[in-house]
């Protein structure tokens, strides 16, 4: 990672005023939307290194779904995880992160995989099944066996700690 400093035009500065406490830390690119950082490098960042969902986060924020981020994608990611991002935006991106197979629904397999990642593989499959059944029981309002965005938002917006846990400090 080099020490090159990106200079912004005035218009770009205005565009990037998405969240005022966004301070990009590492400037590696000369051109903000063309140079792409491969996903392995992003995953080495200290903020993402220990996150079990790091691969999925990179995939969600990348422009082509592969996980390689341009600088703008990186800014997007940091701005969503910052403190000033509104709750609804965080809920939307959280939904996309937990939707591991990208079908706009959090299904049983997504939930199973999520619980496995959260506990680093320590739960028995049977326990995982029970957990997933309980989650669907609690959250699935329309009864179709998977969580749509509305179900997910309904749960997460009312969780007391969502804002404080879904937050990466830059």
């Amino acid at each position: 990672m080099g020490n090159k400093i990106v200079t912004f035009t005035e218009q770009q500065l205005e565009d990037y005023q998405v969240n005022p406490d966004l301070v990009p830390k590492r400037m590696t690119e000369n051109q903000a939307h063309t140079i792409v950082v491969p996903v392995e490098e992003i995953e080495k960042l200290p903020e993402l290194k220990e996150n079990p969902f790091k691969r999925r986060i990179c995939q969600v924020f990348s422009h082509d779904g592969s996980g390689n981020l341009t600088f703008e994608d990186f800014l997007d990611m940091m701005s969503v995880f910052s403190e000033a991002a509104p709750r609804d935006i965080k809920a939307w991106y959280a939904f996309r992160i937990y939707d591991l197979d990208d079908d706009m629904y959090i299904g049983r397999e997504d939930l199973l995989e999520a619980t496995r990642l959260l506990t680093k593989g320590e739960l028995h499959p049977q326990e995982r099944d029970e957990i997933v059944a309980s989650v669907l029981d609690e959250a699935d309002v329309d009864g179709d066996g998977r969580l749509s965005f509305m179900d997910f938002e309904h749960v997460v917006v009312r969780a007391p700690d969502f804002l404080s846990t879904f937050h990466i400090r830059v």
Partner: protein
Amino acid sequence: MPSRQIPYGTLRLRRSNSDSEALLTGGADSDRQADIIVREMEQLQRLMEDNPVSEELRRYGPKNREALRDLPQGLTMKRTVRAKLSASVSLRSKHRPISFYKRLKYRISFALKKGRDRISELIFSIEPWHEAIRHLEGQFGSAVGSYFHFLRWLFALNLLLAILLLCFVVVPQVLHDQGNNRTGSMGFLDFVSGKGGFEDSVLFYGHYHWGDVTSFGPLTYNMPFSYFFTMISLYLFFFAILCYRTAYSYRRNFIEIAGGLSNVFATKVFCGWDFGIVSQHAAALNASSIYNEFKELLSEQNKKHVTMSLWRRMWQYMVNVVVTGAVLALVAGLQYGLWLLLALKTEVQHWEIFVSLIITFVVALCPLLFNLIVRVEYYKARTALYVTLARTGLLDISTLTMLLVYWTQSDTPCWESALGRETYRLVLLDALVSLFLLPLVEFARGFIFKLNPNSGAPEFNIAYNSLTLVYNQAVLWLGAVWCPLLAVAVALKFLLLFYVKRECALRACQPARKVWRAAQTQTVLYMLVTLSLFVTLFSVGSLFLRGSSQTCGPFVTYTRVWGVVSEGVLRLPERPALRRVLSFLTRPGVIAFLFLSLCVATYFMRARARAQRSMVDILRRMLVLQAKDKDFLLAAIDKVSNGEWLYNPREEEQAADSHTLKYLQEVRKPSNAAYHFDVTRLNHSMSETRPHRADTRPHSYHVDRRRRSEDGDTDSSFSWQGSASCLNHTKDQ
């Protein structure tokens, strides 16, 4: 449809569902997505006008948010949308001048918003310890981070208080003192107790001049005015800040999550992982704590939920009440003991230091005691924590109030300075305990853990440390009036406390094993600080209204401290009319009336909140019914696509015999019965004709209908049956 069962209707927003679906699928390419967004925004008329006001509205939004910012799209998308918006605006521009007043109003609000943004940017850029707290959060999780945030916020508050007090009160006094010489011996014990040479110093209230201060030049500075007004305005200002912060925190952490507390599993899965964790050790601990919590939840779910018998519930309730009573008695007993201790006049030198030492130790040890006591009671974990916090808060506030009462009742000639000395001693001795003693204990425990890893790992005790902060802040609120330099002392102490606690945490503590829910606890802590300030305001205010010390302090020339306002500023003795108006306004009747109207307003707000809550309930149930609707309609669509047609082309008019009647009653039943009401379609008018048709029906439909009519939600006047096949059947007969 199931949702038509409910007797009330609520307003439903019309949404263009297809557009939202298209946005969600993300399959559409970005250009088409941008078009969709622009189309939606174009529907808002106000945004689309072509004048500088609307331009700013588009960028800043009507409610001080960027209209574009709230869209969950990437930056590139937003830029595209904005370009398209501007393009479409210039297409349909009609220059309509808006009135000068409106333009002015918008300009002011945008300027305010811009100013607020700049201020928050400025504050962010000078935020101290940002990196340090981030490092701690990465190591220990966001709960410990929240403690350090609290500490930093209180430090900023105290620093502001200290600076203002220094500027307005202390510095003029120091300038005045330069005129007169002062000598006095200062020993070490004097430094601790505040007596001796310190007694008559800038430190305490008694020293402040009661008249004008003239240092250089022709300007005079009226000390009593400045002292009084500085204190009052600072206290009220900080009270407003604290109320705002507490209300904001309460709204975010308690009200907005109402109804969400029952989704334990879903919350655990989706909000369990702390995204701010950076170190591997903390991540492993987070994973294992999530694992433990899952196991706990599973076992709780699996064991048979035995509803407790009435006796058992009553027993638990009784135990709670008895223990609470015991704790209150303990606190009262402590206060009484304190009173006796203070009243004891012994020959021991520096008796006050001993008393302050005892108070400090009691306040330091009681939270641990309350922690043990609450384990005897039957509370849920979170409630137990709040109960402990409330009891400790009660102990602190009652101790300080007892001190206030004692010193005002005593006959010492300058009781204000005595009280100031007391608070000064309390802060000093507590600094001794929390800056030296406790870290030593923590380091010792950490050392023992290193030698013997089997013993329990020392964790950073967030509750205890937060309570220390609340206690210090409460002492400061009480003491700042009588000892203005106390604000400086407490600010300095918090500064040192930050570094000491940081070293403690990093070197001697391990990340917590159980996950600590920080958000709601923060609200409770803010509430405690606000409450202590409120109690101080109340007691000091009532003191000022009643009388003042005649022997020392800046208010000796006034019989009551309130006289500064009434005689000094308003000059009431010379204005009898004004005096009559004011004395009328302060009559008990007027105050009671104001209080009553406040109660009525509160009741109204509460009733409105309750109505809105039940509305939310209704809407939630509607959501569920809508989902059932969706199910029902999907099944119906399934059936229709399988070849069962609901509507047939209308036959020519036949004689009104049983065929037509059957046709009308069976096939031409519309699916939306709400549109027009036809008595022939009523259930009971058909009941007698139903049985004999049952056996002519093909088997599968018959079964369907049975199942449908058993489902309580389905309107049984709906029946698909007897569509084309039945009609053919009957016609053949």
